[in-house]
Structure formats: structure tokens, C-alpha cells
């Protein structure tokens, strides 16, 4: 069973505000699921390289040139911002 403090710590890392009741529920759920994940400890992986991606491709490059700006698309993206001012994204103060 993982501790309540651990669940709170993970929620903080994940930037999720949770109620006390939700923390309890997730403590229970996560413990059960993590216990199931323990199964992987049976596998000897000492000499196995990890796979992060199924395709054997790497470093797909493109030319570093300016691409054409689609003004209409940019307008739509700005339109989707919850808070904006003069075409800029507005955020709350950091500190």
C-alpha cells in the first residue's frame, strides 16, 4: 500500500488538485494497480536494451528554414486562449 503522502506528492508533480476523498480513492486504486505491475519483476531484463519506440528510425530532420505563416490559423489559435490581451496570451503572475 502506498502512503497518502506519496499520493499527495504524485498529485503535486502531476499538477492535479484532488480532494481528500479522491486522494483516498486513488491511494487504494494505485496500490492495487502497482501491485499488479510488480509482475514485471519476474522477468530477467539485466541484459535487455529498452525500446522506447517501435520504429527503427531516429533523428528525422527537416531544413531549418522559416515556414509560411498561416494568419487565419494563428487567429483561430489565439481565439481558443482562455485569457488574452491584444493578441497575446495572458497568464497569472508566477510568484
Amino acid at each position, binding site marked *: 500500500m502506498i502512503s497518502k503522502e506519496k*499520493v499527495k506528492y*504524485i*498529485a503535486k*508533480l*502531476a*499538477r*492535479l*488538485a*484532488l480532494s481528500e476523498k*479522491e486522494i483516498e480513492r*486513488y491511494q487504494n*486504486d*494505485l496500490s*492495487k*494497480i*502497482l501491485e*499488479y*505491475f510488480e*509482475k*514485471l*519483476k*519476474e*522477468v530477467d*531484463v539485466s541484459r*535487455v*536494451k*529498452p*525500446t*522506447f*519506440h*517501435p*520504429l527503427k*528510425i531516429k533523428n*528525422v530532420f*527537416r531544413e531549418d528554414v522559416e515556414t509560411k505563416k498561416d494568419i487565419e*490559423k494563428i487567429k*483561430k*489559435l489565439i481565439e*481558443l*486562449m*482562455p*485569457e488574452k490581451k491584444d493578441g497575446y*496570451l495572458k*497568464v*497569472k*503572475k*508566477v*510568484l
Partner: protein
Amino acid sequence: MKLEDFTIEKIKEGLLKKEFSATELTKAYLEKIEKEDKKIRAFLTLSPEIALKQAKEIDERIFLKKELPSLAGVPCAIKDNILVEGIKCTAGSKILENYIAPYDATVIRKLKEAGVVILGKTNLDEFAMGSSNENSAFFTTKNPLDLEKVPGGSSGGSAAAVAANFCVFALGSDTGGSIRQPASFCGIVGLKPTYGAVSRYGLIAFASSLDQIGPMTKNVRDCKAVFEVIRGKDEMDSTSLEMKEVNNLRIRSLEEIKIGLPKEYFLEGMDPEVEEKIKKAIKKYEEMGAKILEISLPHTPYALACYYIIATSEASANLARYDGIKYGFSIIKNEQRTIDNLLEVYFKSRGQGFGEEVRRRIMLGTFSLSIGYYDAYYLRAARVRSLIIKDFEEAFKKVDLILAPTSPTLPFKLGEKIDDPLKMYLSDVFTVSVNLAGLPAISIPVGKVGNLSVGLQIIGKPFEEEKIFDLATFYELSTSN
């Protein structure tokens, strides 16, 4: 018009013979949805204006005797995690409830060029995380074969829409079985293409090393036709690849191929009724001349844990973008005066915007990637993934294709598994390995238990979809007479 009889080919024929216009056809489908979707609830959003405009364009082409593109006038539905410009795209989440897609996904651009008619967007588990459609933030879609049962997930809305004849085909996305399992549950055909075969540009990301978009159709031929349109390299997705044109991929006769049955898939946990139908289908292939061999995929028992660690880890990173700042649900719109710093915007927008299962998975992924646990969880899972891939590579030295059940059970009851996340995860036990290995796989219906359908999975080597379609077609032809 009998909508249940329509296939891509029949629509083309009907349009050219002027049995109906694309506009009449579109209206017939919209009317059917209007009348019948109240009980199934496959659609989140309907797009009649766009659909009728697309239909009108096809009718004009016919009037002017211009050549018709391959999917001209074919009514389709799109899973609501794929962007269609100008239409809401919610991913089944409250956090994107009012998000209007600012551009078309590459698959949508290709479908539009091929002349389709987009009827609307279909329901899904929130951010495609679920196996029953019950994790949608809006409502649960029901299985058209039995309204008490789930349609499967996460592409449950797309599967139900095809099965209920609300469209001729639909697009879904598959991260751990999300096309194949609902296809199996609703008695239709669903293809998860090879990783990289179809561009993911404009697909709302869940787990980027696993996600693929694919077609959901009433038959194999339509599945192939849609796949032909959507596949191919796209400069907007650097993980997409062009498929090599290989001539020897076609199966001319079943006698020339070897089919593998992974013994680990037939050990335990399968419904006896499902097993019976699967074995009957395998027998049919044998009777038609295919050589059936038992093979072993020894790391199968670890695939599900491996998958859920990797998928949740990638999801926790991908979903970091929903921060209440750039787009989507934001707490500042509700509590403007009481929020005074940035961190609070993040915590509250995400805490309130994401549903229970999505938060659970973000937490799991965050845990697996955090200091002190990374090596034991994420990195270990990535190593096990290599072993799972190697199992398939070894197996494909002996056989051309692999057969397996799509789901261990028949469609389950609404509400049956929703309170036990681990039990729900086990629904994906036969489908996740394919995503971990990046392989193509199709689910085709191979029999009924009462009203409910059983799906057979055909798994192929990377970029050998052609062989999968051929093998599936042999079965289809054998049962259609």
C-alpha cells in the same frame, strides 16, 4: 433506401447509375441518426452543414460528368479525438468541451480529398482511455447488438455508429486495442495499422509510441479501401513512413501460407463461448488448406503490465499540455477573482477538467516516471517491451500470420467493470502486445453468441496489411455463401 446494405462499392454504383444523389443519401443517413441515435448515443456532435456541403460537391461532379474520387459520397463518422476543422473536438473530455478544431488532421484532409461526407463525431472514453466507453465525460454509448451491453472502447461510438448503419465507415484510434475490441464487441471489422503507416497529425495524443488511427467498417473490402486513402508518409508526423510497394504480399491460395496460434493466448481466462467460435474459425482456415502451427510468445503474461506502465507514462507527459492556459477548460473563466497565481490555474483547471480515469492514469504515469521509481517501473517496462517485440520476430520466422481472439469475453454489461479499474484493464489482455510491437492487426466477426458477436484477430508483420486483408477476405468469402 436500405442503408444496412450500403458498402463503399454499392454507393459508387448507385451514384453513377443515378439511383440516388449524394445529397439524398446524406439526408437519409442524417434522418436515421436523428431517429435512432437517441437509444444508442454513438454521436457527440453532428455536422449536417458540412456533410450536405460535401454531398453537394459530389453531386456537382456527377452532373458535370467529372471523375469521382475513391470514396465519393460515402457517409462516415469520425472518432472525437481526430480534428475536423471548424467542428468541436472534445476527446470525450470536459477539458475540451468547447474546443473547436482549428485545422484538419492529415487523415481528414485525405478523406476529404477522396470525397467522403462527414456526418459527425463519435463518442469515446475520455482521451481514449477505457475499454467500455463508460469513461466519456458526456454519456455512455450502448451496443447496438444489445442495449444492455457496452459497445467496447475506446472507439465505442465509431463501432456503434457502423454497426447501427449510421454511416458506412468510421475512423477510430487504437493505443491498446481501442479499434479492435469495440469492432469485436459490435460485430464489425476494425484495423489497427502498423505503427507509422498512418499519420497521427491532428490526432489528440494519448500514448505517442502506441497510438494509430485506423478504419472501422462493415466488411474487409471497405476496410482496405479506407486504409488505402489514409495511409502514407506525412511531413507533419515524423514517425510516419511510406509503405514499400511489395508485390509478393498477396495471398493467392491458403495452401501457401502458415498461420501461427500463440499457445499463451489459449491458456485460461477466455469465455468458453468465445473460445468455441475462435476455434471454429481456425478450423475453417485449416479446412480451406492453411497450415496451422502452434507458436509461443513467451512474454505474453507480462504484456498488460508493460503496456499500462508505458501508456500511462506517455499519457502523463502528453496531457501536460492541458494547463488551463493555452486552450480548453480553464478555472480563470469561473473563478476569475479568487485565483491569483499561475500554479493555482494549473492545479484547479486540471483537477476539475479531467475525469476520474484520466487523472488515475496521469497519476500512475507520473509515479512510474518519478525519481526513485523510473528504473523499477518505466525503464523495466521498456526493457520488457523489447522482449515482447523479440517474441513476435521469432514467431514470424516460422509463420506468415498469427490468429488470436480479440477479446477474452463477450461484451459485458454496462456498469459491470467500471468500479474496478484493474478488472477493466484486463479486457485489453489480447490486444496490447500488438501496439507494444507496432504491428498491424485486424478484428473480424467470426460468429454470434445470441445477439452478441465474437471477433477474431489477425496479426501480421510490420507493413504487411495486404496479407491481413487477404486472409480476412478468405474467411469472409467462406461464410458469405
